[in-house]
């Protein structure tokens, strides 16, 4: 079946029903027109993932492999996977990054509680798209174990690396500092063309989008510190 993912028509070839249900909100109304690419599990990857995700259903494992296969093809279409939580507030998208367990869900959860109109575009594995000037983040069906996200597209206005701390502090990162932190959060294809393109897109990302590192506690104060810096606006608690 063909799905509308990140403004692409993607033909997904799955054997197990898991992915059909998983992606149903993204099913294209137009199943006739040509598709942009095919996403199917790579047999070798499927075998490896069965070992890595022992105990999970084959449908679930196939679903992981389908997304990986899709994302490895995206760079040539000016898109790439980013491991981050994307939140939108006042029409601007913000990416929160950090190793698993750093508190992306907790911190973005505090935004949802305190910032009017904020919502999660993708809680874990958004796709970024680069046009001539801007970077956008898309919601996709793959959005992490908590399943936070929706079918949306938002212009990316900041990257925020999260670090747990005793006090709330925020500072800008240079493009080169960002590059070094970014590598563990992107998927690098092994074919030369897409690997090369991924590095080009990463270069564009660190040049185009301002990056910050937020040392944060679990508090509204952390949201205020972050909001004030990255939006440049005065913080006002949601009524």
């Amino acid at each position, binding site marked *: 079946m063909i799905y509308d993912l990140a403004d692409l028509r993607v033909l997904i070839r799955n054997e197990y029903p898991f992915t059909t249900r998983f992606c149903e909100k993204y099913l294209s109304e137009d199943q006739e027109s040509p598709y942009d690419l095919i996403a199917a599990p790579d047999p070798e990857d499927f075998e490896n993932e069965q070992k890595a995700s022992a105990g999970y259903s084959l449908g679930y494992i196939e679903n992981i492999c389908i997304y990986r296969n899709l994302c490895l093809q995206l760079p040539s279409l000016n898109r790439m996977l980013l491991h981050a939580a994307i939140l939108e507030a006042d029409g601007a998208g913000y990416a929160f990054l950090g190793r698993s367990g750093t508190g992306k869900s907790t911190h973005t959860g505090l935004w949802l509680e305190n910032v009017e109109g904020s919502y999660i575009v993708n809680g874990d594995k958004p796709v970024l798209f680069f046009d001539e000037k801007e970077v956008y983040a898309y919601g996709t069906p793959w959005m992490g174990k908590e399943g936070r996200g929706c079918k949306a597209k938002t212009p990316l206005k900041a990257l925020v690396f999260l670090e747990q701390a005793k006090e709330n502090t925020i500072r800008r990162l240079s493009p080169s500092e960002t590059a070094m932190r970014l590598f563990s959060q992107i998927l690098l294809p*092994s074919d030369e063309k897409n690997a090369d393109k991924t590095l080009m897109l990463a*270069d564009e990302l660190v040049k185009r989008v301002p990056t910050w590192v937020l040392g944060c506690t679990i508090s509204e104060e952390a949201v205020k510190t972050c909001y004030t810096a990255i939006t440049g606006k005065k913080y006002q608690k949601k009524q």
Partner: protein
Amino acid sequence: MKIKKGFILRNVGGECVVVPVGEMSKSFHGMINLNETGSFLWNFFTAEHTADEAVAALLGEYDVAEELARADVERFMETLTKNGFAE
């Protein structure tokens, strides 16, 4: 010495990084971060060259004492050979 095929060197946000591609990505995981001299030498050694040639090239490119250039070249060549990047 010559650097093996299967690596690409790119500039990301001002950082020079080398990553493995194709077959090489199966045996080598991760990335290498090079400074300016390292990046110059990496490009130089993508073709077969000797240590002396690399020292001469460095001296032609940078205002640096010969002993220092030689020490850089030797350390670079040793690191690359030891880690399987060069043959």
